[in-house]
């Protein structure tokens, strides 16, 4: 008696998963790094990591898994850049010419520019809370820290932003017309 073998389940089903999640993942990675090219690198890495677990049926919520993978990978990439920047500063005496911020966007959007000035952990917490609309507990889960830490990170981040943003500023002047979320 021969067993039935189902072979060649092709990439289409994973392509469906990819299509469902990649746009949001890229946008999250961009918000965490302010670098569109780096964001695609990060998301590529995240999908490669999720695939074997998805294939084994171990991933119940692909979106949540990707979110965590993107946050972790963003953190790692930024650290690497930070170290490279510091090494460069040691070699050349300063780090002028090295910016991590999307200059154009920062110039157009004062809030976005201020966000880039937050420490990375605060910035991550703020992005996850206000872009991903995660609860404090969910944010803590993604960042691998306590809920209390998330609370203090977000609180201090917002307090700092409040100081940095001039009265009357808006996000590209579109605060009141941007309720639609992702496009």
């Amino acid at each position, binding site marked *: 008696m021969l067993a039935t073998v189902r072979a060649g389940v092709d990439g289409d089903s994973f*392509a469906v998963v990819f299509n469902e999640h990649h746009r949001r993942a890229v946008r999250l990675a961009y918000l965490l790094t302010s670098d569109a090219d780096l964001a695609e690198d990060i998301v590529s890495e995240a999908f490669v990591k999720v695939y074997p677990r998805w294939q084994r049926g171990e991933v119940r919520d692909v979106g949540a898994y990707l979110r965590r993978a993107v946050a972790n990978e963003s953190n790692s990439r930024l650290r690497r850049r930070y170290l490279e920047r510091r090494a460069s500063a040691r070699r050349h005496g300063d780090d002028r010419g090295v910016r991590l911020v999307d200059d154009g966007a920062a110039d157009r959007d004062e809030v976005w520019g201020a966000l880039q000035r937050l420490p990375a952990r605060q910035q991550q917490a703020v992005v996850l809370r206000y872009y991903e609309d995660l609860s404090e507990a969910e944010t803590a889960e993604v960042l691998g820290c306590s809920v209390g830490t998330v609370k203090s990170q977000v609180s201090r981040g917002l307090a700092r932003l409040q100081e940095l943003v001039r009265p009357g500023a808006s996000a590209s002047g579109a605060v009141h017309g941007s309720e639609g979320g992702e496009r």
Partner: protein
Amino acid sequence: MARIDELVRASLRERAGDVEPTPALWNRVDGRLRRRHRRRVAAWGLVGVTSVLAAVAVVPDLLTDDDTRIPEIVPIDPALPGDVGWPPMAASTPDGFGMLDVAAGSFDLRVEGTDLGRAGVAVRRGSTIDVHDLALVSAEGLVTVVSEDSFVTLDDPGSAATDTVPSVAWAGDAPWLAIAQQTADGTRVSVRSAPTRPATATDEPAELAVLPAGTRVLDWAGPTRTSGDRSRLLVLEGEQLRVHELERSGDGWVLVDTSDALEGVRVLAGGFVADTAGNETALHTLVREDGRVALRRDPVDGGPGSSAFLDVLDDADTSELWVQVRDGRTLLGDGQDAWVVDFDDGFGGSLAVGRAVSRAGLLATGRQAAPEPTPGDPAAEDPLDAPSREAALPGPVALADGRDLVLLTADGPVTIATLPAEGESLLRAVAVRPGSDVDDLVVVSLTEAEGFPDLRWTEYVDGELRVSWETFPPGQRPGAGQGTPPAVSRPVWSPDGDSLAWLERQGAELTVRVVGWGDGPGTGDPATDNASFSLGAPAGDLDLRLQDWILLADSPGEQVTALRLLDPAAPDGARALQITRGPDGAWFLAASSALEPLSIEGDGPILAFAGRRAEAGAEPRWVVRPAPGGVAVADLDAPAAAPVVVQTERADDVVLRSRGAEGGLLVATLTGSGAWWVPVDGEPRALPPAGDLDWVR
């Protein structure tokens, strides 16, 4: 003006809307997945058998090389009985060595183009795809020990001394490896510990016996953990099977008995069927009877055995046949293909077949199960020195051991970084950043080189050392702005991990240094980047030792914390220094800040303290005081309980790390004389040697 949170939300949505993924993203993902799967075993099929294996049909290659498809095989029917799923395995193939997940139909090629394992694959019981101890024998006779994060090729001149390659077997309950090597005098059998599991076991091989030439070790079962344990080593002398009984002694291993060979039976290969405790219950052997190859099962209690012919092996090269038994599955092969058999009750089960597998070893089905714990030193008799720590420790621990930074998890200790030897560097203290886990670990270490202290940080992410002993930038470094290096205390983290503090002493001048932590030391924000607070008299005259940093009150605009310090010369030896974080994130000492004594019950000098008493502010819960033969750890919240006494020769410089009310304590002496885990309601358990240690949490 809109509220700041509304502005942030709007800005993030605006900026996210600026970004559209490029079509190249899918191509990159797809390409990487294809490359991953192209490196797979040529084919896997599943064959069911209902009685004697008269023939084995092999399902043709179903994993296409068509680059547009991602292959997957799903076993459907008949499945192996017992509902344990198809077992994964470590496999040597013509492509190289890797992990074969039969259920998923995938092969993760770990080392491409190698002959690792071509002549033998031994898998320690309990190993999984994720966590494992393997011993691989190459075609050239080299033995390589592989764990999930390291490969170590044993450097033994006997390996390549003859044309016959070594054979290897893992002990049933510990990472001991028996190695049989051919020499001019016969087969030398030795035992050594896994070099991939350092810190507790010896790397020096202990010679066990010299057996007749051509002897191979096949399997090893029974207890080996403590002195006096007796275990059974299964060997094949030519085609005669024997069982050697070994006894572990304080000095090593002794061969105490040898069984008679089975008369009239030509054994080709074999392995023990062992229970969950590692004790053998039956023997599975490949035998040659009347010119045919059969698989036999013989209970060790002498009960009736069973056997069945394997026609497919009749023409196999006898020297290439191999068998391994794990978890109710028998894996066997002829050097080219492998078969998985369910053989508990004769041939009533099913068979899986894998083509192009030179050698393989069965892994446990679960992905996270760990191998059994690492044994202590063979000479260790005291239960404190032979702990089953992995089963008990409530979480991972970072250890300072000489120049090594060691991560101790349920899988055993792993050295993640070693200080350079230059300058006689030493690792004095470790502080794990709150929020760390084993996959994303940040450790700040107090190091010393040529007598000068310094702080360095290390990051270990997803098993990879990302930052190794990086010193702090000049503005944040200990002694910043001072001509001569100060004495530096152990560093402590703020409760949320956003800041790091330590004490610096320059003569009678005592300073609290605080550094904000962004992606490393320093935030770039003047408010939080770094700060110094000089402590006036009388603090400068005291021998204060920084213990920890605790949270007292937290509100959106203000966070009140305290640095807790030990003043060992004072009768009331615990003090707290209040330090507050303002709305801009900056730390400050209030003008009235002073070293406040902490009330501690009991008499006698205090060597260390940790934890917090229930509803008692900054007062510590656990206190260490000297005791006859060591130190006594008292739980002040359980005054009726007797203090736990930890026997140690040196009672000074004690480190105490709390893991909260339920997690218990870590105790160590900075002199490195010992380290222990003290459960809240249990006896202390010895840990690997450590000068300092900290929970990962």
